[in-house]
C-alpha cells in the first residue's frame, strides 16, 4: 500500500528548479490544495472581501468568502469596517444566511447568541440559569466570560474603497503586500473617488482556482482564443504593452495601450480574422478614454491569491476567486463605476460589460478552457503543462509574447509550498 505510483503521484515532480513546466498534480491533489488554503488564503496573505461602496451605511453587511471560509464584512456604528467569520462561537453554526442586508447586531438563530457588529459576544440566553422555586438551575459556569467567545475577527485593510482581510493578524501591511510596482496600478484604478456598484455576475468554474490567476497572467491567449477581440480590433499582438510583477512575483499587472485597428492580420496569427467584419451595432465598442487612464487602455491586475482587478477600456470590475475543493471555484464579478460618471459613461460601462462575465464575448471562453484543462489534469496527473513562451526566466517585459507572469507566480508558489 506504500508503493509510490508513477501515474498518480502524491506530490508535484518538478523537472527542474524552474517553473516553466508545471506538474498537473499541482491542480489535482487535495492535500496540496489544503496546504494552499492554509498558506495562501488563511495565513500571511491579504484576501479580497469587497468594496466599501457595498456597505455604505452603519449596519450594512455583505457575506462573502475567503478561501472556503465564510466571512461577513460589516460597517459598525463608528463607520469602521469589520470582517468576522460566519461561525457562531457556541455550536459553530454558519449563522448568517442572507448575503447582504442591514443589522444592529448579529444573532445566531440556534440559541440566540448575539454579537456586536465588531464581533464581540454580547448576549447568551439563560447564562445565569433559570430560577424555579427559589433555586437557580443550569446556566453557564461562573468562569464563563463573554469576552472569550466572540466571533473570529479578521485583520482589515482598506485602500481606495477596496476591502481586504486576513485571518492572520501578523500579516504585513497591505501596501507592502502589494509592493510599490503593483500598488501604482492599484492606485490608478482606485484613486480615491467613491465607487458605485453596478451589480454582480456569479459563475462556478469546474477548474482549479490557480487557473484563473494564470488566465489573467497569460497575454499569449487573448489574441488567439478570443477571436472577437481580434475581429473587432480590440486586441493586437503589437499593441504597446508591459508586464510587471511585485518583487515576489505573486502579483502582476498586464498593461497595454490599444492599437489603431486596421490591418491586423499579420500580427494576430488568427486564421479566422476577418477584416471586413463589422459590428451591426458598434456601440459595443464605443470607447471613450478617461483622464485617469494615463496612457494604457487596458490594465489587468492579478492580486494573489484571491482577486483580479479589471480595467478593459471603460469596463471596470473586481473578479473574486472563491475556491471550492481543488477542482472548482466560484468566480464573482462586481462591476462598478465612479461617483462622477455621467449617465452616458454608466451606460457605456454597462454596454461594455457584455464583453465580460460568464456569457461575455471575450470571457465565456476563458471559463471553458479552464474546465477542459482541469479535465485533462485529473486524468493524467503525472504529466505537466508548459509555460515556456519567452524562455524559462521570470522577468518584467515590454511585450506580450511571454508566459513570464505564470512562471513568476509558480516561483512564488514553490517558495511557499515547499517551505517546511
Amino acid at each position, binding site marked *: 500500500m506504500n508503493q509510490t505510483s508513477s501515474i498518480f503521484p502524491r506530490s508535484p515532480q518538478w523537472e527542474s528548479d524552474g517553473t516553466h513546466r508545471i506538474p498537473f498534480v499541482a491542480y489535482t491533489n487535495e492535500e496540496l490544495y489544503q496546504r494552499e488554503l492554509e498558506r495562501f488564503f488563511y495565513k500571511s496573505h491579504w484576501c479580497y472581501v469587497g468594496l466599501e461602496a457595498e456597505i455604505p451605511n452603519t449596519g450594512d453587511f455583505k457575506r462573502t468568502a475567503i478561501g472556503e471560509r465564510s466571512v461577513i464584512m460589516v460597517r459598525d456604528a463608528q463607520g469602521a469596517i469589520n470582517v468576522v467569520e460566519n461561525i457562531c462561537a457556541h455550536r459553530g453554526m454558519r449563522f448568517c444566511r442572507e448575503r447582504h442586508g442591514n443589522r444592529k447586531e448579529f444573532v445566531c438563530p440556534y440559541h440566540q447568541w448575539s454579537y456586536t457588529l465588531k464581533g464581540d459576544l454580547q448576549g447568551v440566553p439563560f447564562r445565569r440559569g433559570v430560577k424555579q422555586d427559589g433555586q437557580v438551575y443550569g446556566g453557564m459556569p461562573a468562569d464563563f466570560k463573554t469576552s472569550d467567545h466572540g466571533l473570529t475577527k479578521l485583520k482589515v485593510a482598506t485602500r481606495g474603497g477596496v476591502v481586504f482581510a486576513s485571518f492572520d493578524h501578523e500579516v504585513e501591511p497591505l501596501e507592502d503586500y502589494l509592493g510599490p510596482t503593483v500598488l501604482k496600478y492599484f492606485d490608478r484604478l482606485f484613486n480615491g473617488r467613491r465607487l458605485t456598484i453596478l451589480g454582480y455576475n456569479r459563475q462556478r468554474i469546474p477548474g482549479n482556482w490557480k487557473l484563473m490567476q494564470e488566465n489573467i497572467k497569460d497575454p499569449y491567449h487573448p489574441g488567439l482564443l478570443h477571436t*472577437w477581440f481580434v*475581429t473587432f480590433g480590440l486586441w493586437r499582438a503589437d499593441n504597446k504593452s508591459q508586464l510587471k510583477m511585485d518583487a515576489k512575483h505573486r502579483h502582476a499587472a498586464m498593461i497595454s495601450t490599444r492599437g489603431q485597428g486596421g490591418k491586423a492580420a499579420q500580427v494576430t496569427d488568427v486564421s479566422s480574422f476577418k477584416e471586413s467584419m463589422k459590428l*451591426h451595432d458598434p*456601440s459595443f465598442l464605443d470607447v471613450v478614454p478617461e483622464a485617469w487612464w494615463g496612457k494604457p487602455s487596458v490594465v489587468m491586475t492579478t492580486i494573489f491569491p484571491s482577486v483580479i482587478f479589471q480595467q478593459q477600456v471603460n469596463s471596470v470590475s473586481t473578479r473574486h476567486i472563491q475556491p471550492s475543493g481543488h477542482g472548482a471555484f466560484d468566480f464573482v464579478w462586481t462591476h462598478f463605476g465612479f461617483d462622477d460618471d455621467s449617465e452616458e459613461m454608466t451606460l457605456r460601462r454597462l454596454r461594455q460589460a457584455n464583453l465580460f462575465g*460568464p456569457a461575455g464575448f471575450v470571457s465565456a*471562453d476563458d471559463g471553458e478552457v479552464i474546465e477542459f484543462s482541469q479535465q485533462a489534469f485529473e486524468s493524467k496527473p503525472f504529466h505537466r503543462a508548459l509555460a515556456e513562451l519567452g524562455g524559462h526566466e521570470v522577468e518584467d517585459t515590454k511585450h506580450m509574447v511571454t508566459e513570464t507572469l505564470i512562471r513568476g507566480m509558480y516561483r512564488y508558489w514553490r517558495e511557499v509550498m515547499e517551505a517546511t
Partner: protein
Amino acid sequence: MRIDFEDYFALTQLYADYAAIVDSGKYDLWPDFFTDDCIYRLQPRENYERGFPLATLSFTSKGMLKDRVYGIQETLFHDPYYQRHIVGSPVVRKADAERLECEANYAVFRTKLSDASTVFNVGRYIDTIVRTPAGLKFASRQCIYDSEMIPNSIIYPI
C-alpha cells in the same frame, strides 16, 4: 383587462416559436423575434431585485442580437451543448391596442455530449410585446434568472 382568444393564441404561439428556435440551433432566426430597437436582457435576479443595472447580457438593438449570433457562431469558443427550454403559460399583466405586458416562468436544461442533462438556467421572462404588421414581436424581453451560479458559461440565447 381581457384579451381575446386570437390574441392569447398568437401570444402562446410566439412563446412556443421562440423556445423552438433558441433550442434548434438556428440562432440566425433569433433576432427576428424582436423589434429593431428592442431590449434583451439576461440578468441575475439579485441585480434585478436590488436595483443594480448590470446584466449578464444586455442588448439594446436588434443589431446587437445579430452581433451576438455572430459571436456564438464564429468567435466564442465553447463546449458544444444542447439546450431545451420549458416555458410556462404566459401571465398577461396588461394589454391594449399596441402592446402586451406578460410574464412566464422558464427552465432551461443543458445537455453536453456524453453527459447527463442538467438544470442550466431557471427564471422568468418579463416581456413587452408589440403588434406589428409582421405579427407579435418582443419590444423587450428580460430573462431574470434565479440560478445563483452559472455553470461556467452561457453561450446560446435564453
